[in-house]
Every structure is written in C-alpha cells, then in structure tokens.
C-alpha cells in the first residue's frame, strides 16, 4: 500500500510542477503572443489563413462563433461517416475490412466528432489504417481543438473589458490550438512512446500479430482527452502501453492540458489566484476519487473471495501496471473525459466502479476534457457565485460582472441538461426490452453497464463497462455478418450529440452575455472568488448537484454491489 501511495504522490507532484509551464505557454498562444515555436509555425499558420480565406483579425460575436463551430463540426461529422461507410474502397486497408453498418458508423462518427471516442466498433478487427488515420485520428485533434476553442471564447468573454461582445475568431482559434499546442505535443509524445516500444508501422499483420500506425494516434488520443484506442482493449494492450513507464507517461499526457488550463485561465483574467483556486477544487475532488478507487481495488471482489482467492483485485488488470497504477489511471481517465482504459472497468469492484461513475456524474468538471472540463467548471463557479450571492443577500458578481437571470438560466441548462439525458436514456434502456441485447451481466452489474454507457456517452467520456455491447461480430473472414444493436447505437449517438452541443451553445451564450457586461469596481460587499472559502462552496455545489441527481442510480448499481457478498 505504501508503494502505491508513493506512486500516486509522485505523480501528483510531477503534474503540479508542470502546470505553470504549460499553462503559461497556452495563455500566450490564446492571447496571440509570440512563443518559442512562432518562427517555425507562423508560416504554416499564415498559409492556413490564406487557404481558408480567414481574416484572423476579424472577431465574431457569440452567435457567429457558434455558427462557425456548428457548421465546421457538422461537415467533419459527415466526412467521418462517409469514410466509415465507404471504407472498402480506400487505400491503406491491408486487412481488407468491409465498410461499417449504418447504425454503428453513426455511433462511431458522433463518438469521435464529440470527443467521446466511445468504442462500439472493434478497432483492429473492423477499421482500416485509412479510417484510423484520416478519419479517427483527425477527429482526435479537431474535436479537442473545438473543446478548447469554446473555453477560450468563454475566458475572453469573462475577461472582456470592451463591452462589444466580441469573443474572437473561431477559425483562427482552431488553427492556433492545433498548430501551436496539439501537434507539437503529439510529435514529442509519439517519439517518446515509440522509443519505449509502442508500434508505428504500415506493415500490416504478420505472424498473426495485428499492427498499425499506433503511436501517432496514441499520442493525440491522450493529449486530446479522446480515448479511442487503436486496439479494442485500448491502453491495456502492450502495443499501446508496453511498460510501467509508458503507463506513467500516458497518465501524464492525459492530464497535463486539463490540469494546466485553470492556470491559463488565471492568466487570462489577470488573477492567478482565481486559477489556483479552481485548480485546488479540481485537485481535491480528484484525490478523493483516486484514493477511493485504490482502496476499493486493494480489497478484492466477493466473487474472487468466494473462489478462495486472497488479496486484491487483479481481474482485468495487467501485471506490469498492478493495482495502484491501474487505479490511478482509472481515476485520471474518468475525471478527465478521456476514456482510455488500461484495465477492464467491468471487472472493477463495486466501490471501485462508483469512483469513475461519480467522476462522470460531476459533469466532467473535475479537470474534464481539454477545454470542456474547465468550461463546465466555470458554469459551476457561476452557479456557486449565484448561490453565494443569495446566501449573503447581494447581487451576485463574478470578477466585477453582475450575474443576472439570463446567465443563471443558461448556466442551469448547461449544467443539468446532460444529467437529464443520462437518466432518461438509462430509464428507457432498462425499462423496456430494447436495452436487453446490449446487457451482458446479470443483477446490479447489468444495470451498471447500461447506466455507465449513457453516463459515459452523454458526458463525452468514452470509457465503458465493456460487457455492454452495441456491435455483434460473428468470427467470420472479412467481418461478414457483423451488425449493430440499432437501439443502443442510435440512442448512444444522440446522447453524445446532445451532451456535447447543448452545453457548448449554453456556454457560448454565457460568454457572449459576459462579454457585453460593464465592469463594476470591487467593493467591500463583493464576495471574493479566490479564497479557500469559495473553494469549499464550489465543492459543495458540485457534489450537491451530482449527488442529488444521481444518488438513486448509484444505489441501484455500484453501492448495492459493494454492500453485498451475494453473487448474481
């Protein structure tokens, strides 16, 4: 146990040390300042503006920004769907895989479009290298950049002093985020991963061993908090994650951008304490989650104990990671809406499964996906300011700007809409016969599978209790006869679309409203938002919203499982 806690402590120390470095760099990129990469990247950047015919100096208000974002995302989603449906005629297809069925392709296209990377398809058994590279890996970059761009717009809206409502230029933000942040980090990460044994080849299957251009995709899968693996078993597979060191490195690159963004935010609004306060809240909730999962997994499962096995729960985990590193990875990939896994979530203990579920239940606001996490957190911040204002009986103000009914309504929509989808869709799946074909396990575990599926998809995470299925593959050459479970595929697809774009629109509307507000000077009666007191209030709001929304569902699944030794 001591060794396990040491690992966790060392990881956290390295992470915190990296925050100012990366956070400061990103702030410079978002503010269009010169960075050390500028000489190398600026020519490419200018080329993009010329090709796209974008005037980078021309800003957009929130409606213009939202329109560009929606058109851009829709076209990318369509392209991905077409690539998947016409896979059979593309190059780089050494496995001769057929095109995907309509329902599964819809689910996969929305999954990557929305930065979810939920995997109903089998990576190495259904997708060609072309689909993986030109379809999925591109979306890994683009969907991540879209998430960050929404955050950048919100940060600018909050920090704006001009009152003209301009949030920036969507195309410029996307281009800069990709060229200055995501691509350089991915190149470095790819080289590190290959040097440790992650494969990167177009050589096809040899001697019964499936291969592919894995490392380049692994890098952005982690950095962009996407999580869709080249292989079906994701980062548990040795070709994606060959050693204890790569496991550490992958955990770090999942968390480095989301952890640095609060610092970036502090720089953008001109107060580092605001950034560190938010970081502190995220970090505290994250630590609780890590410890809960680790303690639960160290105790083993009722099933293993009934079989006479003594010790912790290594079922569905890899020896080279062990219980501690798998628990840490599990907590990281679910607080961050990454969804890459290095072990089987289905085989987690009851309480160990509650950890990831609770993280998803906090609407991915604890670190969360790149961009998405912090903008969800900022919605909770506004909610906490509003509640705090009610408590002390003053007009709520955030950074000198009044929070009025319109913003509170938008914040409520943004913070609660996802939860509504999760609960309604789960109820439909388990209350009718349509959820049954996707369910694998009996008893509360079967409920957990369905609940987790919608929790994960609506929050754009992408991890799964993988007994749950939406795609059936009879073991036939060329994947003949493979077909989707239409209900699960379509419902999941809609959960991902709504869970992604409704909050985005709410956030952009809030950003637009904030950008127009006049700034009033800080007075004696202003509630401060950079103190530990506010941090505790914020934690209270997040936990309360999450707990009140999902407690009954938690009771039916993981809580019941961790309270009983009955086997089902």
């Amino acid at each position, binding site marked *: 146990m001591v060794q396990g806690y040491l690992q966790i402590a060392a990881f956290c120390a390295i992470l915190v040390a990296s925050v100012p470095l990366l956070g400061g760099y990103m702030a410079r990129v978002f503010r269009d300042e010169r960075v050390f990469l500028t000489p190398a990247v600026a020519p490419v950047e200018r080329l993009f503006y010329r090709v796209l015919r974008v005037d980078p100096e021309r800003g957009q208000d929130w409606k213009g920004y939202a329109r560009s974002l929606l058109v851009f995302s829709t076209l990318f989603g369509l392209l991905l769907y077409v690539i998947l449906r016409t896979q059979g005629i593309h190059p780089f297809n050494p496995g001769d895989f057929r095109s995907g069925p309509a329902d599964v392709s819809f689910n996969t296209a929305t999954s990557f479009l929305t930065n979810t990377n939920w995997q109903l398809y089998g990576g190495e058994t259904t997708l060609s290298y072309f689909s993986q590279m*030109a379809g999925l890996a*591109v979306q890994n970059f683009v969907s991540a950049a879209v998430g960050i761009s929404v955050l950048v717009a919100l940060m600018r809206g909050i920090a704006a002093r001009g009152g003209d409502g301009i949030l920036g230029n969507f195309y410029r933000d996307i281009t800069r985020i990709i060229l200055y942040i995501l691509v350089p980090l991915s190149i470095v990460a790819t080289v590190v991963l290959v040097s440790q044994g992650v494969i990167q080849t177009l050589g096809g299957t*040899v001697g019964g*061993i499936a291969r592919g251009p894995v490392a380049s995709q692994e890098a952005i899968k982690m950095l962009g908090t996407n999580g869709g693996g080249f292989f079906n078993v994701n980062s548990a597979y040795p070709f994606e994650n*060959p050693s204890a060191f790569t496991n550490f490195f992958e955990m770090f690159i999942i968390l480095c951008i989301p952890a640095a963004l609060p610092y970036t935010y502090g720089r953008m609004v001109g107060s580092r304490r605001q950034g560190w306060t938010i970081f502190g809240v995220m970090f505290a909730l994250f630590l609780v989650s890590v410890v809960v999962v680790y303690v639960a997994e160290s105790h083993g499962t009722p099933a293993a104990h009934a079989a*006479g*096995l003594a010790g912790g729960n290594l079922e*569905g985990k890899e020896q080279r990671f062990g219980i501690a590193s798998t628990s840490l990875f599990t907590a990281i990939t679910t607080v961050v809406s990454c969804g890459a896994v290095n072990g*089987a979530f289905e085989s987690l203990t009851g309480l160990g499964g509650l950890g990831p579920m609770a993280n998803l239940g906090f609407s991915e606001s604890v670190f969360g996906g790149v961009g998405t996490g912090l903008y969800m957190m900022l919605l909770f911040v506004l909610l906490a300011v509003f509640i705090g204002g009610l408590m002390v009986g003053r007009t709520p103000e955030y950074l000198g700007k009044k929070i009025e009914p319109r913003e509170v309504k938008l914040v409520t929509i943004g913070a609660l809409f996802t939860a509504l989808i999760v609960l309604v869709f789960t109820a439909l799946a388990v209350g009718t016969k349509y959820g049954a074909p996707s369910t694998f396990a009996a008893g509360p575990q079967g409920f957990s599978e369905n609940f987790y599926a919608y929790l994960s998809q609506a929050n754009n995470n992408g991890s799964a209790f993988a007994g749950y299925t939406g795609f059936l593959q009879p073991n036939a050459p060329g994947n003949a006869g493979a077909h989707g479970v239409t209900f699960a595929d379509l419902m999941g697809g809609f959960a991902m679309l709504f869970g992604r774009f409704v909050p985005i629109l709410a956030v952009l509307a809030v950003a637009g409203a904030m950008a127009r507000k006049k700034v009033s000077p800080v007075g004696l009666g202003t509630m401060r938002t950079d103190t530990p007191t506010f941090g505790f209030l914020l934690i209270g709001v997040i936990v309360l919203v999450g707990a009140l929304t999902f407690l009954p569902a938690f009771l039916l699944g993981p809580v019941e499982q961790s309270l009983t030794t009955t086997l089902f």
Partner: protein
Amino acid sequence: MRKDLIRSSVAVVAFTVLLGLVYPLVMTGIAQVAFPGKSEGSLIRSGGKVTGSTLLGQAWRKPVLDQAGRPTKDADGNPVTEPDPRYFQPRPSATGYSASVTFFANRGPNQASTRDLTRQHIEAYLSLERPYNRGLTAAKVPIDAATFSASGVDPDISRTNAGIQARRIAAVRHLSPDRVARLIAQNTDGRGLGLFGERGVNTTTLNHALDQEAR
C-alpha cells in the same frame, strides 16, 4: 452561412490532409528510421518467420495425445491442448492469447460466473504446480495466476508466481534452482522510473531464454 460552409469545407480538407496523412506518415517515417525494431513491434523471428513479440504473452501449450500417440480433438474438431510443463505459464487469457482479436474478459465483481472461472484457474494452477510445491493451497495462489489479464496477452507474471513455477521448471528441465532463478532475474522488468507500476517476469523472453539454455 454560405461563407461558413465554404470555409469549413476547405478547413475539413486541409486539416484532414495535415493531421490524417502528413502527421501519421511523417511520424511513421521518423519511427522507422530512429527505432526500426521497436516501431515494428519488437518481433521475435525464428527461421525467418515471425513467431511472436517480446511485448506479447503467448500460449505455451502442447497437444494432448491419446493412447495411440495421436493428437486428440474436441467435439468441434479443434485439437485439445494442455499447459506444457517445460515452460513458464503466463496469466489466464480470455482471448486464447490472440494478437489479432482483442477483447476484455468482462468478469464482474459480483457474478457467480466470475467465481466459477476463478475456481477453474486456481484448480488448473494447483494441478500443475502442486506436485513440485507441496504446501501450495488455494489461498496461497498468487492473484495474477488466477485472474484474467486485461489485454489477453499480458506477458508478465508476478515474481511470486515465477518463484512457484521455477520449481517445476527446474525439475522438468533438470536445471539447478540457482540457474532458473538467475534467468528469472534477467527477464524481470523493473518499475517505471523505479517507482511506477509493478515488477513483472516476462514469460515470453524467459521461455526463449530457457530454450537457448537447453541448446
């Protein structure tokens, strides 16, 4: 709106070319030049043919022979195999150690089926190892030996597990315990940066080393 449509269409093409083709192909080029063996999958070749990878666990089994010395087959016509006692056995796999079709075993914590499968793993382990380890009981079976790995091709076993199997290997191969212990130590992977993850004994490289030793 029309401007956005045109601009986004161009952006879709431009980003797909840059991120979907240029980026992965350039990275493949760099990887192949800088790390030729690793980027190809750390493959093991014998007689010019690829027989495995040092990163992947594989099955070390032999056919079960009937009284006439012919391989037996099950109802589906597949050959019946059993663990080959001359080799270190990796962890149980739900995929038959497949390196081309991967999936999780998905055994839940409260499922009766998990208990039954775990029991089977324990019994199989005991029947193989108890002849060489008198005091071995179910409660002393290492957890890695009785649980499915995540990938199905986990090459590593715990050092405790390797220590138990070493007695069988030494007896069957007529090697001194010290020699087997030395080979185990040579094929043990350390923790990441000396701190992260767990130590594991790589059964794939260890078994190849055993075969080298025999020659």
